[in-house]
């Protein structure tokens, strides 16, 4: 087990370094970092030289990368070109809102796809199975932002026109109302629906095939042969084994969830990190873009590592067959 974890760690570290190289490349490509100081009349030529030395800009690129990496590890992620705020502080202000959206969506996704996945697997080739499997194709092909727009038309615009209670279509809280938990839940409904749709489609299909595979195993027949009730067979033996591969799938999907959150935040004016990324992309604000890419990708790598390890803990076969 220990060897397995070490091996995974050794794979994760070069990937993290690779991610940091990509981010550094973005910083490099964004032009001369000293340019902001040239126009400042209070900074003399000597100051410039001193600043170059402190930041290491007079060194070769490889050394500059190490300097940059050191700063990043110390928490100095640079300043926004636009607001001159500390990038890390800006991100941490918004990250929470994005995580609220993502985790709620993940919870909803799991809940729905577990129910649908098990239903379709236990009722294979029934009408319900065909309907769910057919709908999952629709979920796959649906463009996130358009689905969002359609939900706004249906549940915010049309309901209001008809004089019915309408769902909020923008922001985290209503503008005049109080910042209550109930308000937050109400504002979460539409964005979470949009963000969850394609994952629900994917996980339902995946869980269905994974359940069907497990149900055809010998140990399920054994469980039935020794007279266990169908419910015990299904939930204690089949379900738990079918669930294992889902762990990996969820972790591998985290990058998609971040991308999906970016679009969803844009459609519903959700004040999260994805929306901030978009705003600063429009402003050509490289330090912020670099910071967010670095953070998001590191989160992805760490999640993958956690998935690999927890997978090995849940399923001993992985460790042995490594």
């Amino acid at each position, binding site marked *: 087990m220990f060897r397995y974890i070490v091996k995974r760690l050794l794979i994760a570290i070069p990937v993290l370094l*690779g991610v940091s190289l990509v981010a550094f490349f973005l910083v490099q490509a964004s032009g001369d970092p000293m340019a902001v100081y040239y126009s400042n009349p209070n900074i003399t030529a000597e100051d410039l030289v001193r600043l170059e030395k402190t930041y290491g800009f007079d060194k070769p690129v490889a050394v500059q990368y190490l300097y940059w990496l050191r700063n990043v590890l110390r928490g100095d992620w640079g300043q926004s070109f636009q607001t001159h705020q500390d990038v890390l502080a800006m991100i941490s202000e918004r990250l929470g809102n994005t995580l609220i959206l993502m985790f709620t969506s993940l919870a909803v996704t799991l809940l729905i796809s577990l129910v649908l996945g098990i239903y379709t697997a236990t009722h294979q080739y029934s009408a319900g199975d065909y309907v769910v499997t057919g709908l999952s194709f629709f979920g796959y092909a649906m463009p996130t932002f358009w689905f969002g727009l359609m939900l706004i038309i249906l549940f915010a615009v049309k309901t209001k026109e008809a004089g019915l209670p309408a769902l909020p279509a923008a922001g985290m809280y209503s503008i005049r109302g109080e910042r209550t938990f109930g308000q937050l839940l109400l504002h979460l409904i539409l964005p979470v629906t949009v963000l969850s749709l394609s994952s629900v489609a994917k996980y339902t299909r995946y869980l269905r095939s994974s359940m069907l595979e497990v149900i055809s195993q010998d140990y399920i027949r054994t469980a039935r042969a020794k007279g266990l009730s169908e419910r015990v067979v299904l939930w204690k033996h089949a379900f738990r084994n079918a669930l294992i591969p889902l762990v990996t799938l969820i972790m591998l999907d985290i990058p998609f969830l971040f*991308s999906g959150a970016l679009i969803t935040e844009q459609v519903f004016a959700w004040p999260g990190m994805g929306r901030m990324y978009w705003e600063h992309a429009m402003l050509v604000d490289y330090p912020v873009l670099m910071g967010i*890419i670095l953070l998001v990708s590191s989160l992805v*790598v760490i999640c993958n590592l956690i998935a690999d390890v927890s997978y090995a803990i849940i399923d001993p076969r992985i460790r042995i067959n490594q």
Partner: protein
Amino acid sequence: MTAAIEALGNVKGQQKNPPSIWGLAMRRFLRHRAGVIASSIFLLIVLIVALAPALFIEYDAAFRPNPLQINTAPSRAHLLGTDEVGRDILARLIYGGRISLTVGVLAMAVALSLGTVLGALAGYFGGFVDGLIMRFTDVMLSIPELFLIIAFSVFLGSSVSTIIISIGLLNWMPVARIVRSMFLQIKEQEFVTAARCVGARNGRIMWMHILPNSVAPLAVAATLAIGSAILTETSVSYLGLGIQPPTPSWGNMLKNAQDVIWSAPWVAVFPGLAIFVTTLCINFMGDALRDALDPRMKL
């Protein structure tokens, strides 16, 4: 004697020829009802988008603003209504389809070539090359696509060709993984050893012997990649960082739709419907192709 041979030939000719691999695949594809319907609809969309501008859509309707008919509802003159500067939505939908479909197909081609080369090198040579390429694949897979593609379009600008290249550059990873695993399997087979024995070089073995045997999963991956490339392009264009107006794309037609969603909801409906139907058809085609080419292949 010759007569006897001819007679034999005739007997053979009367027998039904055993179907070829491709014949079998075709038959399986045609049995996939959703796949056949989806292919026909997709073909229809391609035909409309390719031919309609030449036949009955006026260029002006799609490109010249008309202040007299801003955001008008669907009517007989404008079947799908007009947009915020008074251009006909149907006409723009058709011109936009040219862009979105072209981007989808060409981006897939870029991703497919890059992924095939990298995956083949990794799978064939193994060892250090494999480790290097696969770690690079991991790095690229760790960075959420939309974030990187936005950064790309900020850096490189967003003309149609840069969008194609950036989407291609960010989508080769699944292809590389598929090709690598095919190469790992096939390179151990005897016909590869045989080829090596008669003196074939690595390059020849890779491209002439192994690659043709990996076509089935590649064809499926390529089909599905067109769909996801279209989704990516339209998402980025919706965000205003992809295809730039006045060139229409199914994505950027939705960019301003949200501002008028209260007064003119039809502006938001049709471009998204086009994206949805097209990707749906492509996914069904991919599914049918998978059933046809490799029944054992898993989801």
